[in-house]
C-alpha cells in the first residue's frame, strides 16, 4: 500500500500512527506498573487517583474556562470597543492576579490541612487569608492608580478637535 492509500484510510501519515501507538503503549506500561488497583480507592471514591486525573482533564476546559469566559463576556459587553481608553484591562489584570493567587494558594488561605501543616512547620496558616486580601487590595489599587493616570493623560492629550476621545474617557469613568 502506498503512503497515499494509507492516508486515505487512516487520515494522516504513517509516522503519525507510529508515534501515537508508541505513546499509548508507554501509557499502558505506566498503568501496568502502577497497578490499576492503586488508581481506585474503594472506601472513599473521590480520593482515587483515577478520579483526580479525570477531574484534571476537565478542570480547565469544562470548569474554569466557562466561568472566566462568561465573566469576561459580561465585562466586555459593558464597554465600548471604540473607546480610546478602555477600562476592561484595568479590571481584567488585577482580577486575574487575585484569582490566580486564590486558586493556587487556596489551602493556606482557607486553612485546609492545618494538622499536617503544623506537624511539618510548627506554625499555623493564620496569616495567609489576610495576606491574600492585602495583595488583592494592592493589585486593584495599583490598577486604579494607573488607570487614573492614563485617564488624566488622555484628557490632557486630547486636543480640542478630538472631543470624542475625551467624551469616551468621561463615559468610561462614569461607568
Amino acid at each position: 500500500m502506498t503512503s497515499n492509500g494509507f492516508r486515505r484510510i487512516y487520515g494522516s501519515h504513517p509516522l503519525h500512527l507510529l508515534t501515537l501507538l508508541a505513546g499509548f503503549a508507554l501509557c499502558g506500561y505506566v498503568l501496568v506498573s502502577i497497578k490499576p488497583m492503586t488508581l481506585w480507592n474503594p472506601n472513599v471514591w473521590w480520593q482515587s487517583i483515577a478520579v483526580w486525573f479525570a477531574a484534571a482533564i476537565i478542570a480547565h476546559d469544562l470548569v474554569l474556562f466557562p466561568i472566566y469566559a462568561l465573566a469576561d463576556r459580561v465585562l466586555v459587553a459593558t464597554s465600548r470597543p471604540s473607546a480610546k481608553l478602555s477600562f476592561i484591562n484595568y479590571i481584567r489584570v488585577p482580577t486575574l492576579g487575585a484569582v490566580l493567587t486564590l486558586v493556587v494558594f487556596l489551602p493556606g488561605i482557607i486553612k485546609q490541612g492545618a494538622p499536617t501543616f503544623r506537624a511539618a512547620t510548627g506554625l499555623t496558616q493564620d496569616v495567609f487569608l489576610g495576606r491574600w486580601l492585602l495583595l488583592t487590595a494592592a493589585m486593584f489599587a495599583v490598577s486604579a492608580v494607573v488607570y487614573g493616570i492614563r485617564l488624566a493623560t488622555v484628557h490632557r492629550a486630547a486636543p480640542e478637535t478630538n472631543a470624542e476621545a475625551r467624551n469616551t474617557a468621561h463615559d468610561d469613568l462614569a461607568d
Partner: protein
Amino acid sequence: MDARWRSPLRGRWLTSVLGSVLLIALPIVTITGLLSYIAYGPQFGQAIPGDVGWLKLPTFDWPTDPSWLYRLNQGLHVGLGLVLIPVVLAKLWSVIPRLFVWPPSRSIAQLLERVSLLMLVGGILFEIITGVLNIQYDYIFGFSFYTAHYYGAWVFIAGFVIHIAIKIPRMWTGLRSMSMRQVLRTNREDTRPEPYEPDGLVASEPDPPTISRRGALALVGGGALFMAVITAGQTIGGWTRQTAVLLPRGLSRGTGPNDFAVNRTAAAARITPDLTGERWRLTLTGGPSPVVLDRTMLTAMSQHTARLPIACVEGWSTTETWTGVPLRELARLAGVPEPKSAFVRSVEPRGAFNRATLQANQVMHPDSLLALRVNDADLSPDHGFPARIIVPAMPGVHNTKWVGSIDFRAK
C-alpha cells in the same frame, strides 16, 4: 469555525509562541523531577514509589558537589512548575475551540490524536494540582502524593512526546507566520486577526480586539513573573524569603540560631526528653564490635564546621552553618574506614523518614557531618537534638534528625 468563538487573538501564531515556551520549560520541570527520584537513592530501595520498573532515569550515585545541587534541582522543579501555571492556562485557552469541534473527529488519525490529548492535558494539570497541594501540606486527595505525582508524570511524558512529535512542524510554521518584532510594535487598534482557515483556531467572526497581541503576551509573561516574585524567595532565602508571602516557607519563625524552617517538629515525631536526654547514646556498628558514644564524648571529638544548604523536595531551602563530627571520622572509629554505604536510624519511633541509607560519597565527603550544633548554638529539639545528619546536596529529608545509630556497611 463556530461563531461562538470570538477572540481576535486566537490563532496559530499565538498558540505556537505559548507552545514554544512550554516546549523549552516543561522538559526542565520533568527532568529535574526524575532526577530527584534518583537523588532519593533507588539503589537502596528508598526512592518513592518503590518499584517503578523501567520508568526512571538510569540510577547513579547522586553527587555531593556542588553542595547546592539538590537545592537548584528542586528550586527549578517546583519554582519553574509554579511559574509556568499562567503559561499552561493561556495555552489551554488558546486552543479551546478545538475541544468543541463537531463532529469530534473526521478520521481515525484525529480520533487517536484526541485521545492522546487526554494524557497531555490531564497529565499536566494533574501534576500541577498534586504538586501545588503537596508544597502546602494539603493532602485532601487522600492517595500517596509520591506515587500519584511520579506515575502521573509518566502519563504526561507520553502525551507530551506525542504532542511534540506531531505538532512541531505546525508550531514552526506558526512561529514564522508573523514577525515577533512586528507584533511588539502593534497596538490594540491596529491588531488584526490571523488569517481565517476552516478548522483552525481563528474565529470566523472575531470581535474587535480588547487587548493587543503584545498586551496578551505581557499579561501571560507578567503572570509568570508575578508567580516567580511571590514564590522564588522560599528557594533563594535571605531577605527574599519574606516575598514568598503565600507559601508555608515564606513564614518566619524568628531570628534565633535555630529559627530556620523545620521539616517535621519534634512533637509531631513524638520525640520525648527520655529519648534524647542524658540516656541518649549513639551506636556505631559495622565494625568488629559496636561503638557506643554519649553526647559529651562526641563534643570532645575534633569538630568540623561547614556552611551547607538543606533543601527539601518541596522546593524550599535554607543555608546554615553546621558544626559536628565528620561522618568519615565516625566510620573510622567504628572500624569501617572505607564504607560502601551507611544506614542511619533515628530514635524517632515512627515515620517514613526515621531512617536513611547514605552512599559512600555522601559518608566520605569532608563536609558530611553528624551535626551537634547549628549557627553556634546546640541544635534545637525541632532540628534534631542531640545529633543530626547533614550531607551536601542530599535531599533534605534524608538528613536524619535525632540520630540513634549508624551502621557503616563495607559491602
